[in-house]
């Protein structure tokens, strides 16, 4: 449908306004951390807030979060890579059903299954409460559909011919998979891993409800807010977390923009 020029301009302005509104949080955090003040428009620039952050505690929490994110990412790849391969390359009964059921962790609220798991663990495995690996297992649930879809999307873009050629020439299926398929889908795989990694490092609900033994960075910041309210240096803590976690993803987004488009087909 041809759009008249004023309508197109109007829609573009609307889209940009929406984008500004949605990126405002990032600007707001930067503004608050570099003015050490919560008044808008900013009166003066200052780095006071940076001096007030208790860095050792924050870094400890950040490192714990990164450790958890890495563990979740590895677990996600172990679960999702074979699943995506089967969904894209194999025919089996119930494939259509599975491709819908895979969205269950996103559709059912995280809080319900986390609290179900909390009660379940409390009743049957009380020694696992707050365990690192339990938190990792439960955190890995939410990103599964996104990761499977994104790997599936990049598999769909790779021609089967290469795999078949390798198989005909006598390579074993496993050899073919790791020598041919994995290198071909590497960009998609990295994107998928980054999706899992970000959502795992910044997760709040799962460690909060299950009660992690050691605070993740989001729990640490939440604890500070609970003690002190929204003081400016909370913004600095959030900014540091954002730089570490989202920074990497934003760079990767611009590098692998094409793969990102395939996630929500």
């Amino acid at each position, binding site marked *: 449908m*041809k759009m008249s020029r004023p309508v197109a301009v109007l829609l*573009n302005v*609307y889209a940009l306004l929406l984008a500004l509104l949605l990126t405002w949080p990032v600007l707001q955090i930067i503004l608050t951390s570099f003015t050490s003040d919560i008044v*808008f428009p900013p009166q003066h620039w200052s780095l006071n807030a940076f001096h007030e952050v208790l860095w050792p505690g924050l870094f400890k929490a950040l490192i714990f979060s990164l450790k958890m994110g890495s563990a979740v990412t590895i677990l996600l790849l172990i679960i999702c890579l074979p699943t995506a391969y089967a969904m894209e390359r194999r025919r089996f009964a119930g494939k259509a059903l599975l491709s819908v059921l895979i969205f269950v962790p996103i*559709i059912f609220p995280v809080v319900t299954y986390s609290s179900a798991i909390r009660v379940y663990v409390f009743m049957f495995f009380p020694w696992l409460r707050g365990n690192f690996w339990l938190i990792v297992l439960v955190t890995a649930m939410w990103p599964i559909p996104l990761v499977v879809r994104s790997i599936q999307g990049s598999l769909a873009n790779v021609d089967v011919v290469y795999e078949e050629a390798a198989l005909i020439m006598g390579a074993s299926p496993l050899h073919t998979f790791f020598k041919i398929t994995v290198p071909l889908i590497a960009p998609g795989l990295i994107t998928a891993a980054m999706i899992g990694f970000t959502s795992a490092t910044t997760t709040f609900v799962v460690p909060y409800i299950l009660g992690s033994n050691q605070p993740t960075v989001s729990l640490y910041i939440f604890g500070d807010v609970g003690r002190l309210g929204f003081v400016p240096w909370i913004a600095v803590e959030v900014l540091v977390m954002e730089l570490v976690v989202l920074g990497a993803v934003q760079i990767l987004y611009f590098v692998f923009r094409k793969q990102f488009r395939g996630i929500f087909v």
Partner: protein
Amino acid sequence: MDTSIPHPRPWLARNGSTLLLLAPLLIFMLGVFAMPMIFQFAFAFFDRVFYKNVIWIPKPAFYLGNFAKAFTDPTYLYSIAWTVGIASVTTSANILLALPVAYFLARTKVWGRSLIEISFLLPIFGEIFTIYALAYALTPQGPLNWLLLKLHLIHTPIELVGSSWAVIIWMSLPTLSVLLIRSAFSGVDVLYEEAAQTMGASALQTFFKVTVPLAKNGIAGAFLLSFSGGVGAYTLPLILVGPYNDWLTNKIQREVDPYFNFPMASALGVILTVICGILFYFYLRTQEPGGER
């Protein structure tokens, strides 16, 4: 020599490798998702007894009181109605706001496309940052109040942090739904729209009578995802409104954490799961006629 028709290979030999590929997912989902959910369903029917006049402890039983309480006690009933009501309002607003921008992104050249696209992904992957940033943006001294004061819409700053309005407004903004609806619109052939227009339909008529019905499946998906996000909103009300808010998810957590009344928490959890399940069912119904996605 054997000339008979070869038997089809047994089921396990044909599907064994596929099953092996799906095994990690199936084991994970059964162990970490299905088992706790089944037990949650069972716990929802537990009773409680007053142990030695000191503490309430859960007692295995088949007791419907938890569900009865959830639907008769005004606090719980209000909480259920509030959660579902707010989710429906915000989801509808969300979809309506998403439609024009999604269509625009799908059809025309856009100035600043990368910025626009990444801004829709930001709140999903950085939910926790967004929430803290909102807390700063919505203070009486913050930019929103500044803007409203400058525009002379209000005379005294409004206190948004701590009220439900902050949550409602933020949940109404479209994020993921734009991307989902955008890809649904991309799947609609321009030919249909052009045909409608040559036959004399106006632009708006074409959009609502041709494009939207053809992209119905994708829009239903966006509706489902944002509704379940709205019903399941937990961190946003917790941080922006405070721990004693009316959202059902926070009620569930409160039943577990300070009170350890897990039969009640399980009952509320089952109710929330059923709400999402019903919606999921309706979503699947809309998908059926189309077949492929």
